[in-house]
């Protein structure tokens, strides 16, 4: 078991320097373990000493002490806008935290193409779309478009992938039909809009459709979007999910690894 208490990076070894305590992890504000953080919210009452006290009380209930209400402004009749600082009472045990993660080692563009050529021996067919009524293509485009995102080439640029971006507002049925017709290996779904959890419903509906058609294991199902992550994806029945900041090579690495895993399992 690794040490759960250690000096912060670069700290001189002096008795006044407090250690990072993984068993009792707290925000670092101005000093180790001070727990200080900023919080901002609006209350539907006009500013007043009572409103300020209410804000302080809300902070207390959130688990803060040493509370300062540093701004109380009136955006408009009947509202007050607050900025508060406080020190957090709570801490978390970092050693007990377990996160469901996409099990893959991220590789670069060239390596991925190389492995596909050697191990798969043909192009991996990926179809992608923003599904349902969601009209936002920014996510799916960032992953697919030749040019890519943040200097990371998009799937269309890979020699190892035959990547087809169907665009936005594609129905789950259409996407599935297309994947079957084109004999795809993987299906990528982007969901941006999350109003009333429609992104979750949409993903669940896709997987229900896959089950119904007996195609759950025929494709690798991947989703992505600003309000998505791997645990949510798994809960909806997909194989993997990616959140904000995902690069095309992340998705490419995962799809390749999963292809290889499945190939191995079949042997």
């Amino acid at each position, binding site marked *: 078991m690794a040490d759960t208490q250690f000096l912060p990076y670069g700290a001189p070894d002096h008795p006044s320097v407090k250690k990072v305590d993984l068993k009792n992890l707290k925000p670092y504000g101005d000093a180790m373990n001070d727990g200080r953080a900023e919080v901002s919210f609006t209350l539907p009452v006009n500013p007043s000493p009572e409103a300020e006290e209410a804000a302080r009380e809300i902070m207390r209930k959130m688990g803060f002490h040493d509370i300062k209400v540093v701004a109380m402004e009136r955006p408009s*009749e009947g509202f007050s806008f607050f900025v508060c600082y406080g020190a957090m009472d709570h801490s978390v045990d970092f050693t007990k935290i377990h996160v469901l993660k996409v099990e893959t080692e991220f590789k670069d563009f060239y390596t991925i193409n190389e492995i596909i050529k050697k191990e798969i021996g043909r192009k991996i067919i990926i179809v992608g779309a923003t599904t349902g009524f969601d009209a936002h293509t920014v996510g799916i485009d960032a992953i697919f478009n030749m040019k890519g995102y943040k200097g990371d080439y998009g799937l269309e640029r890979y020699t190892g992938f035959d990547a087809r971006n169907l665009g936005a507002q594609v129905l789950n049925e259409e996407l599935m039909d297309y994947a079957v017709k084109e004999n795809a290996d993987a299906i990528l779904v982007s969901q941006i809009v999350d109003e009333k959890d429609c992104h979750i419903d949409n993903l669940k509906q896709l997987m229900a459709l896959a089950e119904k058609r007996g195609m759950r294991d025929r494709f690798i199902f991947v989703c992505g979007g600003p309000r998505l992550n791997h645990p949510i994806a798994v809960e909806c029945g997909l194989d993997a999910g990616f959140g904000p900041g995902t690069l095309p090579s992340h998705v490419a690495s995962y799809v390749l690894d999963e292809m290889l895993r499945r190939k191995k399992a079949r042997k």
Partner: protein
Amino acid sequence: MKLALDRKKIADCRKIAVKISKDVRKMIDRHSTVAQERSCVRLMGIDGAYFNPGIKQHYPLANVIVDQLQEDDALENGVSFWMANACLQKQMSPVEIAAEIVRANGEFRLSKLKLAKPALIEKKANALAKEGLGQLVRKRQERNKLIKGLTDPQDPTFKKPPLKYVIVASGNIFEDVVQARSAAQAGADVIAVIRSTAQSLLDYMPHGATTEGFGGTYATQENFRIMRKALDEESKNLGRYVRLTNYSSGLCMPEIATVAAQERLDFLLCDSLYGILFRDINMKRTFIDQHFSRLVCALSEIYINTGEDNYLTTADAIENGHQVLSSQFINERFALDANMKSEFMGLGHAMEMNPWHPDVILLEIARAQMTRDIFPKAPLKYMPPTRHMEGDIFFSHVYDGIFNLVSVLTGQGIHLLGMPTEAIHTPLLGDRFMALKSTNYIFGGAEHLGEEIIYKKNGKIEKWSQKVLDDSLKLLRAIDKVGIFKAIEQKCFAEVSRRLEGGKGFKGVFERGEGYLNPFLDQLEGKKYG
């Protein structure tokens, strides 16, 4: 003009835009769409709907009437022809005819009625159009009168800071009212009610006041009325006129323009290409529908806002800035063809350049100033970044602040305020307040900065703007060479390809028959409405 831009090149761009628009105009003049016909029905005062158990929603009478004519293969004459004839035969008003159609449940067919003499039908149809369009004129006069009694933050010379435009998007029109009034008090000049994400692909307008939506609130006539009424009250409270905007886009583009005009909205998003590129709506449908929509806007003095901000969310912004300018020339041309004056063209732009690119703020200033110089009378709509917003609200707030500064510095007409919480959720009331407060500071503190600034001859800013203009001229020439229909297929904009007969809503496009009658269109085109 502040930048040394070649006037001849600008004039050439406009000349090419005229050429490009001619093919489109020929196509428009031979066709109509179900949405254009439904707009005429709405202009006859038919705004009702009946509950359709099939879709578990209200279905508009405008659709019922146009659907019936389409089923009976009679639409090529135009809905005005059949409605005018029905009014004559039955001695009823259009609203009574509509009620009769619903009551008879499919038994009463407009195209099966005996026909009156063509001259009489035409006379009746003309009278209906005159009345319907006259109502829009009265609404326009009502707005002008209201503004006269208040302070108008809009300055046609762009010496005053841009109008501050914010969005509300709760999904519930009544909640939207609370947020809109709050925003107005905090300094907002324009309220945009963001539409539910599904609506652009509905081929009918939802009906009544709505309290649920996805990422926004449905555009309905009742919702328009509720919000405009609330903003009228708030305008009077504040002594300052607060404008309202919505989206004349999607499959119901011209109907939304019509209803917005009837309910006295002030601005409308209305783009000649946006639906084609970003919603995969059929090209013909969009070109026909945008023309009618803009004719209505021209009559009602509704400012249009174009959607060029969207181009660079998909294409690279540093390489493709000229696509925005080229599209603005095309949008300007189509608007002029629909009787719009430059003073009502809120041509849109937002550059979405990578914020970590060296000198990116200079490039931003170059493009904003260039757009101002090229379209001196247009109330340009300048939009904040969205593509590079990633959730770090502290960075985003600063990023938006820089856009605010560029906007006031270059004399933009309308400024869509960036929200620190862009890409996270629709703005919380406090987010909107933060954005308005910082904008009030920057617009106030730099109100006259533009008048003090002279750009360096052959400096980075000037050279960049010249390059964008050169590239635009090249792109427009390339579009002209193959024609716009083919050019869009070849991805001339936003790296998107669309086909002339592909996309959504193509079934709603039809060729006008020899007997096609549309006095609404004729009067709007000929400005004969009073």
